[in-house]
């Protein structure tokens, strides 16, 4: 952990100065917002905390323009309340890491959500944070403030650096302000379920649903004594009703689609918090093509994995105490990759969060990181 007192810049100028000085001194800075993801990655040593929590507040929000500009350390909960009050939403359904480490939700900042690029169940239909990040201001590892992207919903001027920063986990720059695309919140949201399907049957049913005109916003499968395969359909009331009927006919080969509006909160909450999975096992987040979801859980079950499927099968949450190389080879053979989300610190010291890429990609990534951060001031060893 950090030896020195945290840096607490109050302005972009102070932030630039702090980063430039640290880079010049060969120091390492760990960017900190809400710290909801502090248990991700290799435990850090000899780093100084760069506390971003002074960068809060809404800069500009014009609901009919579908654009929200907000400072990076603004609490996610505050952002969601703000847009909800105007009948809008962050369509990628931000994923709050707090609960999976047994902490209360709400500590995450919007900047942390973007830096980790984590979307929830609706990411399937609406895209992830990367798809909704329009622009940003940030200070790179060179200690320089730069802007990229813009504050309008359609823009191709210059390289799309926001895409690179989304999911970079603070390794390129410290984001101070970001502009997100917001969308109207649905007036009605319905949850419909099929009961008792195997993982393979559920993946097939979800593929049929996603390939239909029912415009399914989220599709997930929770195993159990009687498994639940859940679909979320939302929008205007008449349309939702019609699409639920359409969905029922499309998934009829897999069973009778049932109204589950009463248990909707519990189902989607389970996928947000992963409470059905044991807390004491390492937790993996496996990204694969949706059709491979069932074979991945089949392979991991042999090692005692407990799991949930989201994104129509494309996201496998697996709690399993197994050889990390085995988990990663299962993911790789399904054309995807596995991220180690939760594990004891001794394990995280050995096993990286990201699945290591092929050499040429790893080298390219390293060159891109050096482009933003030549001194490695953000290379804390966490990733």
């Amino acid at each position: 952990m950090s030896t020195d007192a945290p840096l607490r810049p109050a302005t972009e100028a102070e932030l630039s100065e702090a980063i430039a000085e640290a880079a010049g001194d060969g120091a390492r800075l760990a960017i900190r917002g809400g710290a909801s993801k502090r248990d991700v990655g290799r435990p850090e040593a000899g780093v100084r905390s760069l506390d971003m929590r002074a960068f809060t507040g809404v800069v500009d929000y014009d609901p009919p323009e579908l654009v929200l500009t907000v400072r990076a350390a603004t609490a996610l909960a505050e952002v969601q309340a703000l847009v909800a009050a105007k009948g809008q939403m962050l369509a990628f359904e931000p994923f709050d890491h707090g609960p999976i480490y047994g902490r209360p939700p709400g500590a995450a900042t919007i900047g942390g959500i973007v830096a980790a690029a984590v979307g929830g169940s609706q990411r399937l239909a609406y895209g992830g944070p990367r798809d909704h990040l329009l622009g940003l201001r940030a200070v790179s590892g060179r200690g320089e403030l730069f802007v990229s992207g813009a504050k309008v919903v359609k823009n191709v001027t210059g390289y799309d650096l926001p895409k690179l920063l989304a999911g970079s986990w603070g390794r390129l720059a410290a984001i101070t302000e970001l502009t997100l695309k917001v969308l109207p919140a649905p007036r009605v949201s319905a949850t419909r379920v099929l009961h008792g399907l195997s993982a393979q049957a559920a993946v097939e049913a979800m593929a049929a649903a996603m390939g239909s005109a029912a415009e399914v916003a989220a599709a997930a499968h929770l195993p159990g004594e009687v498994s639940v395969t859940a679909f979320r359909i939302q929008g205007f009331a008449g349309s939702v009703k019609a699409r639920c009927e359409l969905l029922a006919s499309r998934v009829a080969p897999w069973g009778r689609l049932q109204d589950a509006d009463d248990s909707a909160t519990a189902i989607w909450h389970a996928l947000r918090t992963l409470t059905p999975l044991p807390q004491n096992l390492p937790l993996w987040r496996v990204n694969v093509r949706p059709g491979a979801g069932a074979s991945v859980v089949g392979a991991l079950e042999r090692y005692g994995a407990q799991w949930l499927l989201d994104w129509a099968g494309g996201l496998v949450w697996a709690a399993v105490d197994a050889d990390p190389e085995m988990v990663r080879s299962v993911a790789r053979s399904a054309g995807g990759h596995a991220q180690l989300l939760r594990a004891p610190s001794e394990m995280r010291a050995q096993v990286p969060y990201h699945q290591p890429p092929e050499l040429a990609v790893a080298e390219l990534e390293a060159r891109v990181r050096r482009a933003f951060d030549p001194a490695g001031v953000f290379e804390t060893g966490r990733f």
Partner: protein
Amino acid sequence: MTLSMPAPDEAVLARRGAIIAAMRAIVPGEGVIDHPDALRAYESDGLTAYRQPPMVVVLPETTAEVAAILAWCHENRVKVVPRGSGTSLSGGALPLADGVLLGMSKFNQVLEVDYADRLAVVQPGVTNLAVTRAVEDRGFYYAPDPSSQIACSIGGNVAENSGGVHCLKYGLTTNNVLGAEIVLISGEVVRVGGRQLDPAGLDLLGVVVGSEGLLGVVTEVTVRILPRPEAARALLLGFPTVEGAGQCVADVIAAGVIPAGMEMMDRAAIHAAEAFVHAGYPLDVEALLIIELDGVEAECAELLGEIQPIAAANGAVSMRISRDEAERLAFWAGRKAAFPAVGRLAPDYYCMDGTIPRRRLPEVLERMRTLSDAYGLAVANVFHAGDGNLHPLILYDANRPGELERAEAFGADILRLCVEVGGVLTGEHGVGVEKRDLMPVMFSEIDLAHQQRVKCAFDPHLLLNPGKVFPTLHRCAELGRMHVHGGKTAFPELPRF
């Protein structure tokens, strides 16, 4: 030509014979084109005001050939300009006199369609529309639909992050691509993204899309395909004022409706389109709005019910709802023919592509009228109203001395205006050579340096498509050392090309 390209390197031109021989050793037969008459076919793209025959054209057929070409050019410091179908409106594929033009047209196969995973793997030379053609019999389509979709290639779409009239609801190319195989200038073949949704590390695919051929050459693309909506209905609304039409768009979105498309035309564009295709547009209005809804029948019906009172409240003086598919297409016929229709009004037209915050539209159009008077050039406007993407069409006659330059100056003023009101230089056409020198209007030297260092990470000798996007191409070694203080560079700016 008012924009200058990098001066050809005489030493490279002197090696032309050897370079052509090297290309022939990699790509046999007719895949290497060096006859001056044949080279002329490649001298420009959709930005026809700029022409430059390339040194040689190479048309590879395999990723291995692309890799060999790039590796050779890298080793021998020869510039490469990638080209898809050559429909760029910003000069993204403008050749260089001392460069190899790498044409990707032979990569024209749809390699795989996976309906269960809702994706298609295609080669970059496949046209945008051909992707939809390949999957439509199973009820699927590829959502981004740039107006050139019959001709433009997926590789070009990836390079330019192309949009279309439906991108407010369905996104740009970047939101519809899952993965790509790219060849770096070093000849290394890398895969970015994949078939899953989240990348394994940095989102390299995200920065490759829209990089205008400066980072790598795409040799395979995995795109998302979507189920075709059951139905589509369109409203045709006429307004006595631009303000009324603009407010209608804002109110529709504020009501929670994201239509599949929302297109606006101003009086000049309405009249030109009506005279050309007789779409039945009202002629006594200042602004015409086409709003398209898609989804299940019930959705279209419900949203029509939401929108009609909003249109009436904002003073719509004419309102028609498409009763059948033929009428819906008729509503669109005028809009889709707007460019050629406006093209009939003058020998030449120049299509601009800025985005603005929608709420500033009346003010921007008013100031555009003042500029139009000052430059003595007429302008017609079509507008992707949902996402604020404005396409002013400036009318001019290239045969009149100085008029092209005047049209370009007018266009540059319009783009400066877009940035001034909080918008951007380009919404979907790309920077290319066209808007290259305007980049400092939107970005500081520091901003651009951060972009260009990414270029250096991919292409350290700046061999891929130089002269595009960046107004000043700093050598990578310079850029790595460059520290900027208080908005001023510590190093004097290198001479521009």
